[in-house]
């Protein structure tokens, strides 16, 4: 089968087959990242616009590199330098970019649904690079690629997602993606950080980290998003670390070949103890590397769809 969508907005709307297709599409691009000349001419003449209305270094750089390694032309727009500061609406910005004959728009925005709103009104392909608390689909894809690469499969793996699930779009995309691919997902965190209705997504909710880690194959630690919390959801960072920080001792409760993942940037000493972050189980840098390959595969597929 082939990927028929114009946009990538959310994992929640994808079928397991489409997720597999996106992961498979990333595979050949990993080899290109290891070459001396890290460039192929597949998207020559295409234009990619990165519209980042929220601070981001790793995702923005990853999308930029992915587009450049496909030989597309890339422009990155951030709010301080854009007309948003002059009061232009998001939709007008999108139409302006479309009039400049761009082919792919990558958007990160603090409002859930921003990417979808734009995708419905413009003809170019829109990629959601994170919208509010909603979704961050390419992060879930790179997480799955990393797990599949290390474990050889996704089905029946036990995965713990730990931390501030309520504020995390990464968690939402990961839960959708992992459960669709047949993994068993348990989310762990304080009750104040658990949104209602998680079981409807197929995830099991736990509050005690020690017991939740028993025998898991993968641990995904979420970043404590202090900038997204309007009020304090836990008494102190010190208490949070004591209850939900991942230490080497806690890692031993998991399966012997457990993978420790983190979407970054890591708050060292908060979500991850420094010795865990630097251990062989941590695949955080693999995630970053796979991120470029996943985004290359995605842009390649979307550009293909436009030709048809």
């Amino acid at each position, binding site marked *: 089968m*082939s990927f028929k969508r114009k946009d990538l907005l959310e994992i929640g709307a994808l079928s397991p087959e489409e997720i597999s297709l996106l992961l498979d599409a990333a595979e*050949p691009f990993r080899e290109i990242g290891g070459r001396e*000349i890290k460039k*192929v*001419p597949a998207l020559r003449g295409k234009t990619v616009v990165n519209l980042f209305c929220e601070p981001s270094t790793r995702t923005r750089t990853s999308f930029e590199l992915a587009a450049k390694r496909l030989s597309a032309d890339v422009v990155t727009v951030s709010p301080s330098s854009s007309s948003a500061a002059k009061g232009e609406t998001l939709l007008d910005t999108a139409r302006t970019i479309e009039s400049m004959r761009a082919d792919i728009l990558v958007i990160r925005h603090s409002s859930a649904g921003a990417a979808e709103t734009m995708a419905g009104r413009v003809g170019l392909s829109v990629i959601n690079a994170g919208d509010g608390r909603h979704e961050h689909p390419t992060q879930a894809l790179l997480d799955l690629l990393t797990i599949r690469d290390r474990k050889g499969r996704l089905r029946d793996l036990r995965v713990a997602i730990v931390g501030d699930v309520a504020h995390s779009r990464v968690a939402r995309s990961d839960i959708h993606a992992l459960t669709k691919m047949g993994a068993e997902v348990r989310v762990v965190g304080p009750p104040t950080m658990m949104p209602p209705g998680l079981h409807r997504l197929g995830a099991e909710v736990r509050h005690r980290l020690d017991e939740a880690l028993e025998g898991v194959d993968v641990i995904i630690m979420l970043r404590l998003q202090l900038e997204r919390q309007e009020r304090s959801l836990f008494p102190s960072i010190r208490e949070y670390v004591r209850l939900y920080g991942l230490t080497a001792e806690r890692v031993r409760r998991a399966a012997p070949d457990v993978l420790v993942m983190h979407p970054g940037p890591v708050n060292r000493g908060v979500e991850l103890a420094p010795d865990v972050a630097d251990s062989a189980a941590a695949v955080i840098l693999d995630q970053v590397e796979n991120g470029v390959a996943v985004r290359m*595969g995605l842009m*390649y597929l979307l550009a293909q769809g436009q*030709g*048809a």
Partner: protein
Amino acid sequence: MGRALTRIAHEILERNQGCRNTAMVGIRTGGIYLAQRLQRIIRQIERADVLLGELDITLYRDDLAMRKNQPVLKKTEIAFDISDLKVVLVDDVLFTGRTVRAAMDGLTDLGRPAEIQLAVLVDRGHRQLPIRANYVGKNIPTVKDENIQVFLEELGERDRVARLGKARAS
């Protein structure tokens, strides 16, 4: 087909005075199996292995934007440094020459070979680019909109070259 490949293997050895500093790179998919067969024949003659690689040229095609169906993307697997090697590209059918053009672009992105040579099982003519094969299994005159297909045992078929009448040019 076996005799043609044996002759090509001898020609490769003759031209390159053995198989040192020589690598064979098959173009996906048919070319890969032909390259493997050539490697086996050369092993019998020379008692030495030539380096073997696989090249996927999808990302280098000049008609990507025009194709209706998404071509399946596969990996390029060349586990050695091709710089300063004599690289023999292997493909099943030589037609317009566009595949070979793309393969040469792909190859030069991986390094700077001393020389690139081309071996094909069938040359059916109708070149659209100034490209010529160094080793040809058989020249088959065709009309332009004919479809020539090489079937191989490795792909679950009986070894043969077939004329499939009028079909899409590939």
